[in-house]
């Protein structure tokens, strides 16, 4: 078994940190069982609420630290939607901000030692991506009707290549939720697994200092990746939203 790759007393279990297990007892995981996923989802939601609700409690004209971070997140997402999807996109601002806050806090909380990273699970990111995909498709058809299909029929191209482009466009459209979910989950899995592997090397005294330095470096890199991936997830959502609102170009 691959996880049992033992050699010279080294034991790597880089994937064990992703196992879903019930919080109480050892029973099977039914759909309602409170698991570690539930715990960390709840913590993610609480952290987002703490920042955006408790942080802005003062409603100060001159903000304190928490309030300015909350306003920064708000301004970042607001400006992103306005720049990419236009003014009409602001109708969906609350959901996109929810997505951003959820992803960024799930990623960052996942970096707490011994934590469980909910965004490293395909099931979670898949639901997020599919929600964006179906939401955007429904918005596209509701706003533009059949004209939404202009997205696939590139009128600026010569007639002869349009069918080929249409096939490519359709494929790329349906790959979107896949790439959106795999990108996020893959980044999280990869980063955490690499940290875990380096941490495993720390068991050998000779390479332990290098391993520890590597863990610190990877950790800093992962903090960056956590934020950048949340940003990328949100920005791609905005790009898809723009396609739904203005399909013909």
């Amino acid at each position, binding site marked *: 078994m*691959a*996880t049992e790759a033992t050699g010279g007393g080294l034991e790597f279990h880089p*994937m064990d940190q992703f196992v879903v297990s019930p919080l109480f007892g050892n029973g099977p995981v039914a759909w309602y069982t409170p698991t570690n996923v539930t715990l960390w989802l709840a913590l993610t939601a609480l952290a987002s609420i703490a920042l955006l609700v408790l942080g802005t409690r003062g409603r100060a004209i001159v903000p304190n630290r928490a309030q300015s971070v909350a306003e920064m997140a708000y301004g970042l997402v607001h400006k*992103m939607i306005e*720049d*990419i999807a236009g003014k009409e996109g602001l109708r969906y601002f609350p959901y996109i901000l929810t997505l951003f806050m959820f992803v960024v806090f799930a990623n960052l909380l996942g970096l707490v030692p011994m934590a469980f990273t909910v965004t490293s699970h395909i099931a979670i990111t898949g639901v997020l991506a599919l929600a964006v995909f179906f939401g955007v498709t429904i918005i596209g058809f509701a706003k533009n009707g059949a004209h939404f299909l202009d997205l696939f029929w590139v009128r600026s191209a010569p007639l002869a290549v349009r069918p080929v482009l249409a096939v490519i466009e359709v494929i790329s459209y349906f790959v979107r939720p896949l*790439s959106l979910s*795999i*990108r996020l989950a*893959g*980044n999280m*899995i*990869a980063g955490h697994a690499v940290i875990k592997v380096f941490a495993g090397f720390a068991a050998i005294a000779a390479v332990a200092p290098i391993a520890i330095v590597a863990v610190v470096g990877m950790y800093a890199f992962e903090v960056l990746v956590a934020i*950048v991936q949340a*940003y*990328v997830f949100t*920005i*791609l959502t905005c*790009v898809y939203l723009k396609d739904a609102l203005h399909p013909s170009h």
Partner: protein
Amino acid sequence: MEGNIGELGQYIGVGLTAFGMGMAALGVGNVAGNFLAGALRNPSAAAGQTATLFIGMAFAEALGIFSFLVALLLMFAV
């Protein structure tokens, strides 16, 4: 030596997917380098294009992540 030929192929395949990582690194580096070259020519226009930069990097990097996914599938799911 022990083990079977299937496991051997599995590990070789996993190792080969590391090439995907290198290719993605080339892609991301290309995106960032070209952005920097353009930004130095016209610094005033650079600020408005950071979103495009991130989108491009995300697309380039996604394919590297796909190779990582293939590696994981080979290691654990096959």
